[in-house]
């Protein structure tokens, strides 16, 4: 038997209030850790620069819209740029890789992107990591109606090598907008845990020749035909994904295209563009953080209240303990230890709550953006929140502990009846 035995006994004697308090602390800890972790992970995922490209060239307009549309496959395309501009930038010595990118169709709501085979041969989305195709898969033939399907799309729609599908016009799924063309899946990608998992990739030629599509590369309307090649001057791209030789190249290109030019926009650097988005919506994050802090304070209050409410009935117990030789400090410590124990148990529960919230958030964020959050990623909030809450829990115990400390022994040892 030791001081902890007294704490354990008290928790058992006040099982209901202890349980409710532990749950409230658990929810507070779990919510707080989740808010911080989700904030940090989404910020990292969208601004961490691990998208594989340094810059995006697109139609004149918002850099943010360009990045969201091309890198994260969200939002609509701001417009198209002529193929010649792609060729011009691809030939620029400051550019090490330029991949054209055309959008405008979907399958069951998942975006279809027209590109070149370079996307699967030269592009790396992380240091040394290019797209990997699952066994039995191969890169599409740029002259055929073939598709490579992102991991998440394949999983959700049950597509595999040999499956066929017909694209739908537009970025929103509308079953009335079905194209006549039929594409065959030639590969499914291994997961990248990024936005590419939510995309169906087809040859860019396929976008041009999709039934009903018209091209305006020269400004005039051009309708491709099956038997003739599409003249270069009529071709358009939604964007060009660029890898640059060095940051100076980005600075110079940005100056040329954004400040001196009038037809295109260069979104560079991608991380900064996304960081601006987070700065713009930073108030949401700040409100969530404040709510989390508020919940923590309420939880600390509930610890205080739950222990304080037992003080009257426990005065006699403290008096007896004091009569048996317990020092005031011992009784004080027992109460602080009790509040600390409640908080520690709540924090343990908080990790479960955190796991639950992160699991749900992972599913939602992945479904919306393709980005996979990592519930086990080490975030400072995962230890700072528990430590902070345990300190706060101990502080919450001070008020009832002081009341126990002041218990008058003689007057509380009176007969029960």
């Amino acid at each position, binding site marked *: *038997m030791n*001081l902890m035995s007294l704490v354990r006994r008290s928790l*058992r004697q006040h099982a209901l209030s202890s349980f409710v308090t532990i749950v409230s602390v658990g929810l507070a800890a779990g919510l707080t850790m989740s808010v911080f972790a989700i904030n940090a992970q989404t910020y990292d995922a969208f601004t961490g620069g691990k998208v594989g490209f340094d810059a995006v060239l697109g139609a004149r307009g918002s850099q943010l819209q360009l990045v969201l549309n091309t890198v994260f496959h969200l939002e609509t395309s701001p417009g198209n740029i002529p193929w010649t501009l792609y060729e011009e930038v691809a030939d620029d010595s400051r550019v090490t890789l330029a991949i054209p990118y055309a959008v405008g169709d979907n399958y069951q709501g998942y975006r279809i992107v027209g590109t070149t085979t370079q996307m699967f041969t030269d592009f790396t989305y992380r240091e040394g990591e290019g797209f990997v195709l699952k066994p039995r898969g191969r890169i599409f033939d740029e002259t055929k109606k073939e598709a490579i399907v992102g991991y998440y799309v394949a999983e959700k729609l049950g597509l595999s090598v040999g499956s066929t599908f017909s694209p739908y016009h537009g970025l929103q799924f509308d079953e009335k907008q079905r194209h006549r063309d039929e594409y065959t899946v030639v590969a499914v990608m291994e997961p990248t845990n990024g936005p590419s998992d939510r995309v169906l990739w087809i040859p860019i030629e396929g976008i041009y020749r999709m039934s009903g599509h018209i091209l305006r590369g020269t400004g005039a309307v051009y309708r491709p035909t099956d038997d003739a090649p599409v003249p270069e001057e009529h071709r358009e791209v939604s964007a060009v994904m660029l890898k640059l030789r060095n940051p100076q190249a980005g600075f110079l290109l940005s100056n040329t295209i954004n400040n001196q030019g009038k037809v295109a926009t260069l979104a560079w650097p991608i991380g900064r563009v996304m960081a601006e988005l987070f700065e713009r919506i930073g108030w949401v994050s700040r409100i969530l953080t404040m709510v989390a802090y508020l919940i923590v304070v309420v939880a600390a209050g509930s610890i205080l209240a739950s222990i304080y409410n037992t003080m009257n009935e426990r005065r006699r117990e403290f008096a007896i*303990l004091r*009569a*048996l*030789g317990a020092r005031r400090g011992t009784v004080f410590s027992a109460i602080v230890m009790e509040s600390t124990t409640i908080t520690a148990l709540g924090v343990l529960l908080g990790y479960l709550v955190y796991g639950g919230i992160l699991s749900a958030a992972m599913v939602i964020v992945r479904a919306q953006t393709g980005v996979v959050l990592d519930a086990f990623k080490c975030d400072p909030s995962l230890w700072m929140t528990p430590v902070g809450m345990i300190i706060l829990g101990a502080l919450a115990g001070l008020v009832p502990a002081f009341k126990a400390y002041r218990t008058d022994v003689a007057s509380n*040892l009176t*007969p029960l009846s």
Partner: protein
Amino acid sequence: MLLDVTDLKKSFSAPDGERTLIVDVPRFSLEAGEQVAVRGASGSGKTTFLNLIAGILQADSGTIVLDGNTITTMSESGRDRVRSKTVGYVFQNFNLLQGYTSLENVMLGMLFGPGVDAKHARALLERVGLSHRMGYRPGQLSIGQQQRVAVARALANRPKLVLADEPTGNLDQRHAGEALALIREVCKENSAALLLVSHDPAILSAFDRSEDLGDLNRAAAAHAAPSAVGGTR
């Protein structure tokens, strides 16, 4: 000498603010292993007197020397320390903790003293005839059994002095006699002195030395029925 009390005074403030002297004992002493009964009527300051000796209350003036420690000049924590090592206390209403078993109640007495000794706690409960009730909580025990747990707890830290405040006050005559005999026997076996206060004249006759609090406490004589502050006095 185990206990030496000199010019001990303790007063309390009444609700009207007036201070009332409750204990005024010029001289009282107890030898090691001695058993003394003190008779006092209700409100004569019996409990206050014991609480002062136990160090639960601080005296207004006077001296209490307990086992060589002048507890009247000690800090509260110092008195707590002396109490946990030197004094065992059997309360009139036993003051057992309701959520704890008999064994745990006895071990609680050890928690703040030299240390928990479960074997000794079991031996004490066996000695008071409760070997079959160690896992019972106070609410599951008879009054007599609760009192025996209280006796075992009082002896848990091998105290040199056992204070017993109306220990048989809640028992009928037959059980009171048995309980008294048990307390005296186990105190003797454990070489503990016993200071027992009671208002029952029958109990006093069982002791070789008995005192009347009316003679010991000059304040008791002055107040026929002082108002109660802090429980029985």
